[in-house]
């Protein structure tokens, strides 16, 4: 992956927006990797959770196209274990919201099979739609 580093990118509107929505100071992260070590979805992620925060620090907006942010289950394991007190679950939420707030859905409700709809409990559907639809 080619990424041009510049101070301008680290102070871009994208970085500011993520810091504003998440309320987290991204520069506190020193890349220890503890978030990635404990993440339950890590085996399927294109970028590891610590790589996501690094890419946001550097202003790399292509992180939004990465499946990683949608594989986060908001389990808060990273949040309780971060030695620097960064709540990565809030950063992941902010990244998802940048897409969802453009009226784009990740979960295609109409594609959920009927037999699945019959067994899925309301708690699964409501939480999924809250996290993955606009």
């Amino acid at each position, binding site marked *: 992956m080619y990424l041009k580093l510049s101070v301008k990118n680290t102070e871009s509107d994208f970085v500011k927006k993520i810091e504003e929505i998440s309320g987290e100071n991204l520069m506190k992260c020193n890349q220890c990797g503890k978030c990635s070590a404990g993440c339950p979805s890590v085996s399927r992620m294109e970028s590891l959770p610590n790589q996501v925060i690094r890419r946001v620090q550097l202003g790399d907006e292509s992180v939004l196209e990465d499946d990683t942010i949608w594989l986060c289950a908001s389990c808060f394991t990273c949040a309780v274990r971060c030695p620097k007190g960064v709540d990565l679950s809030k950063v992941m939420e902010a990244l998802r919201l940048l897409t969802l707030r453009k009226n784009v859905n990740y979960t295609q409700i109409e594609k959920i099979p009927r037999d699945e709809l019959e067994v899925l409990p309301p708690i699964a559907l409501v*939480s999924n739609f809250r996290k993955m639809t606009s």
Partner: protein
Amino acid sequence: MKIPYYPGCTLKAQGLGFETSAIASAKAVDIEMMELQRWNCCGTVFSLASDDLMHYIAPIRNFIRVQEAGYDKVVTLCSMCYNTMKRANLLVKNDSEKLKTLNDFMYREEDYKGNVEIVHLLELLRDEIGFETISKKVIRKFNELKVAPYYGCMLTRPKEVGIDDWEEPQIMENLITALGAEVVDDPMRGECCGAYHTVNSKDLVAERTRMIVTSAKNRGADIIVLSCPLCEFNLGTRQKDTIEIYSDFSGIPVLYFTQLMALALGMGKEVCRFDLHYVDPRPLLIEKGIIEEGEEKNAR
């Protein structure tokens, strides 16, 4: 003691046995859970964005209902409702400006004053009743039934809302011991089950279910007990999908902690609704001599 009770959506559907067994077993230890009038969905997940007040309206409105009823405490069973409501409550308690905005938005309701406390039933049992008192009321013998507690995410994380230590919780272990069953020490008890990914990534959940259930089973567990209807669906009902992907996988029953409690207190059969579980625990309970053959026919 009398306390208002907030059920949430799934306890009126697939998780009905959680509600009926909880109300019955709480009553047996002198807790009268009264369903909150006009409750609404809590939203299931707490909004993690700093600029998203709209999603705190649902949980806060429930606190107004508790206030209207003249109480300052509400109990809940579902881990996700507990987490969402506790976090929303903490947020407005610490931010009077946000509370005012929410109150202004809900101008037809009385103002929420921020004085209601939300507790999980497990906390009430530990702090108000005491596990020792509960153990004295145990009637049914569990005959060395081995139980693995499963906490998942929402009971213990994040730190500010956890009912126990987030890495080394003991509350369910202590309850299981008080009820006379054997605790299985399982390192996977705090691992995420995959949560709402069950809607669009069944295979991700199957991967988690295989790991979590197999871990408990390999350590000798006969059953897993938990406190979240979404975990119950993923670790229980999704065992069907897990076997389809991993042919070497075999599961064990997954129950709510209140069903274990109802059984111990001698009631179980009318209130447990074992029929709502994908892996039927009744053959195991009969084999262990915990319920009798024939008894299971009424055990709904």
